[in-house]
Structure formats: structure tokens, C-alpha cells
């Protein structure tokens, strides 16, 4: 009897996702049953690593089998789910899934920044997005996709934010490692090219002393100084 098939039968019969702790508990309990046979006893103390390896093998096998369902890990717990292309029939059968309304573009942008950069302060998010995020943060907090994780060790000790397990569930992710292009986005390094092709020297002269403008226009800095480019109204 292979471990992976035992796990498969359990996940196949489970009414909700099971994590590895729960699976190990079941293996241990089956081994302790009065009528446990030697096979059952074999798996009494299955190592976490063996369990995870078996689950990953299973998931790969089901992907290779290319059937109408897959074994997936969502927020650390494993479950069988159907492939999205069968949704038309499943909707006709079980009805449309009740899910909260879709997230707005600003909410998704903010969430992406928090997901990849956590723990992150509100100011850092605003720096990247270039706009105030108060309203959007409120939405994300209320929907329990984002939560306060601590405080940054900088002046003012601003709150830092991170994503919740519900965030993983909502997007069907096993863990934060499964975020698309996670490595790249966590640490964005932008390599400066040799030359910036920005000059348009044919025009006239400077309009303002550069150092004055520089201090006012520093991106991300709250504009405390009077509006540099005076609105005409």
C-alpha cells in the first residue's frame, strides 16, 4: 500500500481541505486502531517531509492524467477541485458559487504590492502606487484579505500590513511562494541603462532654478510646499 494512495483516498473522501497535520493525525489514529494491521501500523509516524513529497507526487500525477479535476494545495490544505473549463456544467448542477464581489483595479494593485512586499507600511504602498490608498486599504482590511502584521521600526512606528490566509484561499494559492513571479517582484532591481534617451536640447532655457524644483518635486514626498505648477484657477 502506497502512502500517496492512502492520502489520495482520504482527500478524495474529505468534505473539506486537509492540511498535513490533519493527514498525519489520521495516519496515526489508523495505526492505533484496535484492528490495525501491519500496513496501517507502518504509517504511524510518517515524517512531514515524506507526506509532503507524497502529496506533491500525487498532485503531479493528477496533472499529468489531465482529467477534469486536479489535486491542489490552497492555503496549506489539500483538496480536489474541478478544472475551470467545466464550470458551465457545474454551475448548471450546483449553482453559481457565492463569492464576494470582484475586487476593483485599485484594490488589486494595492493588494499585489502588499502581497509581494509584506510586511509593508501604507506609506510604502503609496510610494509605489503614487496615490493615496486609504479607502482601498479599508476595503482590503474589511474583506480580511489584508491584516496589520506589526509596526515598522522607523520614526512614528507606522503599522505594517500583510496578507491573510483568506487571501490565499481567495486566489487559490497554496502559499505566498505560489504568487506569480514572486522572486522578481519581492526585490525589484532595475538596472540603469547606459544612457537615458531623454534629451530634447533644441528648446529654450530653464524655467525655474533646478534645486528649488527638485526639493518640491521629489516623488513620494508629501507635497508640503506650495503647489509648484500653479493651477490657473
Amino acid at each position: 500500500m502506497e502512502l500517496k494512495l492512502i492520502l489520495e483516498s482520504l482527500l478524495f473522501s474529505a468534505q473539506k481541505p486537509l492540511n498535513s497535520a490533519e493527514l498525519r493525525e489520521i495516519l496515526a489514529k489508523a495505526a492505533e486502531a484496535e484492528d490495525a494491521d501491519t500496513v496501517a501500523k507502518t504509517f504511524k509516524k510518517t515524517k512531514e517531509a515524506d507526506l509532503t513529497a507524497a502529496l506533491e507526487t500525487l498532485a503531479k500525477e493528477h496533472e499529468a492524467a489531465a482529467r477534469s479535476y486536479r489535486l491542489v494545495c490552497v492555503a496549506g490544505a489539500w483538496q480536489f477541485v474541478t478544472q475551470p473549463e467545466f464550470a458551465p456544467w457545474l454551475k448548471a448542477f450546483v449553482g453559481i458559487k457565492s463569492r464576494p464581489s470582484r475586487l476593483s483595479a485599485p484594490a488589486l494593485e494595492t493588494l499585489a504590492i502588499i502581497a509581494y512586499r509584506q510586511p509593508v507600511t501604507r506609506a510604502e504602498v503609496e510610494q509605489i502606487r503614487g496615490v493615496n490608498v486609504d479607502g482601498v486599504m479599508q476595503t482590503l482590511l474589511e474583506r480580511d484579505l489584508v491584516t496589520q502584521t506589526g509596526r515598522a521600526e522607523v520614526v512614528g512606528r507606522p503599522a505594517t500590513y500583510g496578507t491573510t490566509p483568506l487571501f490565499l484561499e481567495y486566489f487559490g494559492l497554496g502559499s505566498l511562494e505560489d504568487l506569480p513571479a514572486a522572486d522578481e517582484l519581492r526585490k525589484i532591481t532595475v538596472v540603469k541603462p547606459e544612457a537615458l534617451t531623454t534629451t530634447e536640447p533644441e528648446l529654450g532655457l530653464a524655467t525655474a532654478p533646478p534645486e528649488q524644483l527638485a526639493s518640491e518635486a521629489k516623488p513620494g514626498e508629501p507635497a508640503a510646499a506650495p503647489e509648484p505648477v500653479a493651477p490657473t484657477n
Partner: protein
Amino acid sequence: MAEYKVKFEVFEGPLDLLLYLIKKEEVDIYEVNLTKLATQFIEYIEMMREFDLEVAGEFVVMASTLMFIKSRELLPVDLQVAVEGEDDDTTDPRWELIRQLVAYKKFKDAAAKLQSLEARQENVFPRLPGKVEFAPEPAPLKPDVSVFDLLNAVNAILRRFTARDATRDVFEDKWTVSEKIESIVRFIGERGRAKFTELFADATSHGEVVCTFLALLELIRLKQLTCAQSEDFGEIEIVRAATINHTPAPAVAAPPQT
């Protein structure tokens, strides 16, 4: 400031507008002509104003940054003033802006990926099997139910009959305890065990219940049967006593008639 009725929400912010303008030019962010971009950006803002759209503060700040970049470009390199105390790399406002744009673009793309995951999840259905059930196995029985439990159970059954039979005619009792002993032994003999209430299920009269109960007590006294309860307040079960010999009906002398 005039009160603007419509909020300009097509773009998430100045960076979003800049990305849009760059995309329109069909050039790489690194290749973009910032001076031209600045001109377009400011034109756009002016247009927003003409349409009486609210121009958020962030757009104005960005406009000033772009103005600065543009003006700086107009000076010959040797006349450009570096900000004191910082090295060239960090003071070049063009580079600052490009870096910000590249980072923002990546997160915007990541947000689009999240959006497709969100849409995908709406179409993913988890397997929800029916509950796994095994034929109820005899739970480990807790023996030694007190006779009071038994009496309580009987009282409950009798009460039910009293309530139900209140208006019925009294009819002749045709049951004897010995007959009931036989039927209980037969019943339990076939099945090994029986729920207490099952023994009374077919009873049609007060008298029959009494007969059945007396028969049961007799069998317990004779150690033919024993009763057990698998959990507190659980249903009492009647099982064959462990030492049972398989002689069918016990010899009960002259059972009392009711």
C-alpha cells in the same frame, strides 16, 4: 479652487497615466523621451481641467516633477546643478522617475495576474463528496445499567400508552409471560442483540407491555440475557449473556398470569 463634479478616475494615478502615454508611444520605458512625455502629461492635465474634471493632488505633484526634468534637459550638461550631498545616481530625477515607473508597471502586471486568478477561482469547484459513513458498528458497550434505568424506560413506554389508550376500549389481554419469554429468546436468538424499545415495538396494549417486561426481567434473572448501555442516557440494549448456552427457551415454571 472650483468644485469639480466628476472625479477623474480613468487612471489610477499619475504613474498610471504616464504608463498609458508610454504605451501609446509604443516604446520601452527605458527608451522613453521624458521631455516629450512631460509635455503630453501636462497637456493631458490641462485637458482634464477644461473638462472640469477634478485633478488630484498627485497629478499636480507629478506635473511639477516632469516640469523639472524638462527644464533640466534644457541646460547644457556642464551647467546642470547637482543636488548637494547626493551622488549622481540618486539625484538624477529622470532615473528616479523611470525606476518608479518600472516598479509600478510590475505591480500593475502582478495585479492583472491576480485578477485572472480571481476570475479562475470563480470557476473552480471543490469536490464535496457525501459524508463517508460506515455501517454503525456495535460501540463498546458499557455494562451494568441500573435497574432504575430499566424502570424509567418502562415508565416512559407505559406513559405513552396511557396517553394513547385513554379513550380506547379495554380489551382482553391475551398474552402470557411464558409466551413473551419465548418470543424474546427467539428475537434475540436471531439477531444477537436488540434495542430495549424494539421488544415493545409491536405491543398493542398495556397488558402486553407488562408481560413483555416481566418476561425480560425473568430472563435477566436467569442470566440468559443481560442489558447494556453504550453511552450515558443512550438506548438500552438487550444482549445474550456471555455464558449463554444455546438451549432455546428457558424452563420457567408457571409464569405469573396477568
